[in-house]
């Protein structure tokens, strides 16, 4: 059985990146937009782990970076959801189209 080549993994991560980008730009629900950002972060994680394992296996810099990204993504999601809950109390909606007090 031959190992999976690096390019296959990079295709997965690039696809995940663009799915996340597409979701962020098209979805109007704030929670879904937050999930789209998490998809992008996951594609970054895949990149780091794959590069580390295939190209630079003697050092663990990529894996460590991944651990930090996971932790910070959790912190970011916590603050973002707190902000969204507060916004829901003010606007009674979590649709970005409804939060349009400021324009131009």
């Amino acid at each position, binding site marked *: 059985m031959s190992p999976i080549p690096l390019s296959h993994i990079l295709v997965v991560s690039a696809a995940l990146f663009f799915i996340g980008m597409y979701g962020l730009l098209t979805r109007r629900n704030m929670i879904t937009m937050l999930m789209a950002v998490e998809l992008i972060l996951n594609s970054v994680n895949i990149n780091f782990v794959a590069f580390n394992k295939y190209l630079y296996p003697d050092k663990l810099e990529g894996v460590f*970076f991944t651990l930090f990204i996971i932790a910070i993504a959790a912190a970011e999601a916590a603050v973002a959801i707190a902000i969204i809950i507060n916004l829901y109390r003010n606007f009674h909606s979590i649709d970005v189209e409804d939060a349009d007090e400021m324009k131009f």
Partner: protein
Amino acid sequence: MWVDIILSLRQELIVAVIIFLLLFIKIGAAAYRTEAMLHFINLLLLANLLLGFFQGGDATLFSGMFHTNRLIVLEKSMLNLATLIVSLQAYSWLKGHRQVLEFYMLLLSTLLGFFFMISSGNLLIFYLGLELSTIPLAALSSFDLEKRRSSEAAMKFILSSAFSSALLLFGISLLYGATGTLGFDTLAGRLDGSAFQLFAFIFILSGFAFKISAVPFHLWTADVYEGSPVTVTAYLSVVSKGAVFFIFILALYTVFKPLAGNWYKIVVLLSVLTMVTGNLFALRQDGLKRLLAFSSIAQSGFILAGITGSSRGGEASVIYFILVYIFSNLGAFGVVSFISAQTGRESVNDYRGLYATNPLLSWVMAISLFSLAGIPPTAGFFGKFFLLMAGAGKGNFVFIGIAALNMVISLYYYLRVIKAIFMDSQPEPIGKLKIPLLPKIAFLVCVAGIVMTGLVGGIYDYIYSLSKGF
């Protein structure tokens, strides 16, 4: 050994100690008088500024993760000074607020993040510092919890900053794949300008451009600046932007130096777009916060013009301009913040006839706006002059001509505010306001800073002697 580490990290340690002190006061103290607490915190911040000021030597800690030198210490002292001024100006707003301690904990966490970001010698520490500053900033912009605009601004800020960090991270991960290292010193040696590395660099540059609100990545700026409490807006526009510019110039001049031929064109394009768009949108604004938001976008364009110089003078002029910008922008935002906290009025038309009732506030506003516009006796003129001189070093005179023309356009909207204050009148002008001691000190520091940094020539020479150059 331990003494060396503590001395090199002293500015970070002092800020961390203050954060924990406030946390313990929050847990331990049952009730406190808000005004006494505000005076106490401002004293702590003053001590923080003074203790950080004395110069240490160069140091590299934690196997290259963290490094410091005299220029970085100076930059951190500038951020400390700006935070102190913001805190003094926040007095009249925070006096009626219940969560004073939480405000300062979040504010100082962002400052700590900026310190680590500026001193970083590794992309990991850079990212951690950036996030340590961004996440509390989003919470801060939602600090007026019951105001709809504040929560909308916070939502826009957290979503766009999460997206921009994700872009930055994607770029970093590709760069790691291309070079196999994350340290700044080893990274520069392994960049050769291949297509893959340029692709990664574009992502990283977009992440930076989001944070400094360069056009076309500026769309969040005006809304976040308008919706956040004015104090937070002042902090965002000065401390946050200044800190990101410090690390941006370090990254471009040292880490991405091998790609200089490529990034020069991109930064010139960003600079022109940022100046023109910022100025044109500022022309049509009636709200002062939004006007200052677009003016700060335009100022970013001028700073980018200085960065394109790629010389020792370029670095020195950017740092000097940020010092000037701290005083002039905080002077203008301080007046807006004070009047907004007292009367709730924030549009240009509300300021008509202000000179008749509040001469001191009018003069602070006028001097700050003259400095932002770059009128000769103020420091803003010298700041912009050095920036354009540095940019002109490359011989791209069409670009410098566009920048000079933009300075003329920007006069229109700055002078419109000054005309409203000094020449117009209205039936219900803003009443006579009594300025408490702390905001008054902040205003005087700003005006003194605007006048002195321009006239004392030694300041620019000192910054020039510290900067490393290209």
